[in-house]
């Protein structure tokens, strides 16, 4: 993000520190949560939710995605769609096997 004024940048430094704290806290939280006595489904959901929040913070602030150009967002949106496809469609095929 070029074209920022000095003020803007100084402000964003505060944001970065905030994000860092959030990431650190969430890391501790996710580790702590793994010691809770949860079912696989619950812990899976919890762990992935936290990871997604952390991921969003990194991508959104450190990588400036929140304010990025639409061209890049479009490329990433497409990628994300295919990511979901490759992650889950094979698995769905696997659950729908004619095999017993």
């Amino acid at each position: 993000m070029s074209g920022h004024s000095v003020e803007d940048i100084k402000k964003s430094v505060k944001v970065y520190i905030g994000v860092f704290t959030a990431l650190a806290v969430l890391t501790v939280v996710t580790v702590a949560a793994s010691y809770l006595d949860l079912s696989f489904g619950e812990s899976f959901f919890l762990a992935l939710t936290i990871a997604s929040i952390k991921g969003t913070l990194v991508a959104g602030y450190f990588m400036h995605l929140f304010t990025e150009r639409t061209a890049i967002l479009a490329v990433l949106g497409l990628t994300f769609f295919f990511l979901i496809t490759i992650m889950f469609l094979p698995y769905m095929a696997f659950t729908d096997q004619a095999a017993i």
Partner: protein
Amino acid sequence: MSGHTETHQEESFWRKYIFSIDHKIIGLQYGLTALVFLFFGFCLMMMMRWQLAYPEQPMPWFGWLFGESGIMLPEMYNSLGAMHGTIMIFLGVVPLAVGAFGNYFVPLQIGAPDMAFPKLNMASYWCYFAGGIVMMVGFFVPGGAANSGWTSYPPLADIATTGQTVWLFGMVLLITSSLLGSINTITTIIQLRAKGLTWMRLPFFVWAQLVTGFLLLLAFPPLEAAGVLQLMDRLLGTSFFLPSGLVVSGEILNVSGGGSPLLWQHMFWFLAHPEVYVLILPAMGIVAEVLANNTRKPLWGYKSIVYASTFLGFMSFIVWAHHMFMTGMGATISAFFQTTTMIISVPSVVILTAMFISLWGASIRYNSAMLFALGFLPMFGIGGLTGLPLGIAASDIHLHDTYYVIGHFHYVVAPGTIFALFAGIYYWFPKMTGKVLNETLGKIHFWLSMIFINGIFMPMFVQGLAGISRRLWDGGASYAHATETLWLNEVMSASAWLLGLAQIPFIYNLIKSMKSGEKAESNHWQATTLEWTDAPSPPLPHRNFEIIPEVYRGPYEYSVPSADKDFTPQSEA
């Protein structure tokens, strides 16, 4: 550093022709290397066709390649088959269509001085070159080159001879090359379009390359991941693709187990289906250019072609499991993939239809380039149409892994893509070399190729319907259900060798015209796109244009009613 000085610097031979960063030189490097590989892949196939037509008879002239008996052994046949597929697709057609034509003409058609990242471009070529060398090394390791098909299905590929490891290393290099290339192409097209060259004014060839770039960019990485996993299986004894409890030739396979052979198939076809559109889209792009130019009228339904090809690109990511219907797929998921497969055939119909309709009202010039482009249309039509029964699980029961499939895809890749590439060579040769290819030889080349190529692939449908499996060393000779159609093997093989002879006028033409061909003008075909109208007479200078052109109109403004000549260049104000 905005000096014009650098163009005047004397560059050493190495810098200029070997480690060049000029997209045109790199394009030529790609082109020549790819042609050599195509030729080589073709030679492998001509040898296989001997074995198919005359099983277990010593091969004349080349028999020494297979040891004293002169007979091709089954493991050799399998090697040649796998390498033929790999070489044709990954070392031949894609580098020629994307590496050579894409590299050379995308910057020229969008009015850019070069690709966005010239050094990356060079790296991508050398990765490809290295990948090609590694693939060739496979032939010399113990046990011969990879012999598990170009699809490399484990467990067979996991337990295959060393050649498979070499194949995997080669693939990793080729994938890296494609990734670097696609980043470059996409960036170039998005960033370096000349002033006024809006999206709907792009020549269709550029659109095709853009979509292709995205396919390569997003579909290849999962295969790279799969390649790494298979390497781990082979080198470190993991069992990603090996289930527990395998017994190979009487020995219990000593691995941890727990893997799945189907995982590989998903990851492979996630690439390999988009890959087939990588083979066809640039070909369609070339055909569109040649058609518009030689019909002397705008491409009919340009917008619908553009939308159809982007839609095609998108859909190609979610049809892959139509290659896996016979792996025991359940009703729901197969319904999904059958539906997407039927949907993806519609944009192809749209594109082909638009191209046919473009002919109406035309003033058709029949030169060699145009003949090949026209030949492409029905040939792709046959290939595409025979894809439909394969896309339905129920009919695929009978047709899967038979010669019907071989017939289907060769119609799209050989008389389809290869013809389009020939069209591209005849069309752009004058721009690349400043010389014109001989038309008579070109027409001989076309007609002979057209006849013999159908002689090879048409009978395959018959054999496929009869149920002859592919990848059979003896071409089905031992099967009763093959007896009635077995004689076709000789017909096909003879056609293949004759097709080989038919390439001689072409190769001669290339060399002869390069040396002493008729000189070409800078806009030899009276075309409208920038590479013809604004780039100076060939050979082109390092940065392509003296001044960066500006664009005022669509790509195919031929025979504009009020204009004084029958073509109106894009850059004409």
